[in-house]
């Protein structure tokens, strides 16, 4: 696939977001972040692409205006409207459990030792819509190495802030607050797994999970827990919130899988926001080359 050089794109066609993408780094197929690839309006071939519709990054308006963040309301435009006054400073993250150095970190200190990386990932919601989003953050693996989990730690568990006065949706028992998510240790250590602090090179907006959220691009979006205040290392599989809420419909693994439908709707296709025709859903959201080995021999229908 030909990478277009910036000169090939008419200046009138370059939006602020295109210009951002052109300067940013992309994730290479081998899982290494390559610096300085001058991208184009299309993703570099290093991102695993298949012959289907365009994987163009979505616009700022789309990404920040269409959100599932029930702490701020259950409509898609509720988080943008209701998270305006959410306080993200000061922010403390507790790291505890089976770890050598449990501590409470101020967010600035937590992220200080690392270089932020730019990753353009596909994002697939369990509701069967999707976007392509240019996140900025730190590979979770690097943070975990610093925390030094004990050998007995087999899972990482994350918890969202519980503050009903700041997050009005938490006043209703729509979900069993606070929101909890978890990953198997190998999933947490995978190079694709990202602790996100930014979007399009700007600070992550409140409605997208500020100031710190998780992104696991080969899983359904609800695994990407937002507004993280606690990271615990545990030896039992965490019961994640959507599984507690509807165990027949949402599981722990939540791998994007076109062959395993949601009980009530299909997962074989998706609506890419901004595009008119439905799109075929890819196994592991198109990241199969990089993650399918994690699940070798597992019955993905049972472990959904």
């Amino acid at each position: 696939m030909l990478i277009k050089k910036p000169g090939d794109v008419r200046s009138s066609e370059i939006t602020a977001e295109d210009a951002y993408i052109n300067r940013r780094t992309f994730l290479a197929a081998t899982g290494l972040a390559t610096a300085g690839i001058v991208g184009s309006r299309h993703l570099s071939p290093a991102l695993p692409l298949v012959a289907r519709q365009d994987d163009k990054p979505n616009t700022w308006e789309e990404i920040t205006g269409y959100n599932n963040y029930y702490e701020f309301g259950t409509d898609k435009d509720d988080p943008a409207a209701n998270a305006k006054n959410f306080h993200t400073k000061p922010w403390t993250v507790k790291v505890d459990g089976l770890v050598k150095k449990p501590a409470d970190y101020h967010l600035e200190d937590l992220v200080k030792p690392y270089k932020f990386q730019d990753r353009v990932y596909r994002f697939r919601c369990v509701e069967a819509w999707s976007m392509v989003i240019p996140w900025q953050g730190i590979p979770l693996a690097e943070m975990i190495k610093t925390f030094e989990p004990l050998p007995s730690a087999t899972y990482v568990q994350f918890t969202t802030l519980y503050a009903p006065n700041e997050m009005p949706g938490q006043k209703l028992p729509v979900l069993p607050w606070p929101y909890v998510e978890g990953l198997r240790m190998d999933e947490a250590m995978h190079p694709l797994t990202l602790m996100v602090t930014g979007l399009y090179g700007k600070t992550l907006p409140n409605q997208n999970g500020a100031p710190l959220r998780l992104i696991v691009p080969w899983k359904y979006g609800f695994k990407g827990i937002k507004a993280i205040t606690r990271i615990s290392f545990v030896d039992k599989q965490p019961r994640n919130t959507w599984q507690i809420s509807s165990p027949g419909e949402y599981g722990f693994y939540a791998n994007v899988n076109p062959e395993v439908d949601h009980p009530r709707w299909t997962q074989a296709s998706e609506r890419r926001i901004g595009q008119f025709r439905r799109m075929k859903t890819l196994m592991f959201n198109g990241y199969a080359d990089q993650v399918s080995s994690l699940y070798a021999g597992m019955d993905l229908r049972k472990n959904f």
Partner: protein
Amino acid sequence: MTSTSVKKASLVMVALAPLAVIGWRFYDNKLGANPIRETEIQTGLWTLRLLAVTLSVTPFRKSFGWNFLSKYRRTLGLTTFFYACVHLSMWAGVDWFFAWGDMWHEIVKHKYILIGMTTWLIMLPLAITSTKGWVRRLGKDWPRLHRLVYVAAITGTIHYLWAVKKDTFFPLVYLAVFVMLLGYRVISARQKSSRESRRRSDASVAA
């Protein structure tokens, strides 16, 4: 044009106003990031709302003696069916682009689509037999057939309930409204038949 048909036309205009707003917002790209889904949701909601208005005609007429309402019931019912057709067309044509195989799979495998399709299929014969000609042809059977509208109201609301992820509050509100409207008709039908049987027994006593 008679004054009644002018009034009916005005009613149709008013009832179609929400659809016009949805259509205008769709073309103006003001339906958010997922306009196709939003249009499906909005046309579905207005189908249920208009159905509730249609089913309120007889209760209001009976409670307040507003007999003038009865001539608008068919207008409202057909407009409701029209919204249901737009809702279905959005799903079949715009969302799935007439991919018949995929749509059939959806219908048989996913119960919320199946019950939605069932709802429309119940409404179809009701729309077709809404004319004066059919009322005459079916005679006593016409009211019996058209009681199916209550089945459609319930299946339509269950379609809504099964489609939402977690926010079941509003679907349950609609369900409560339809149950109340159905309950009203059942109770008033019972009162009517008990009055009639009392009158018959009084007449036979008097004779």
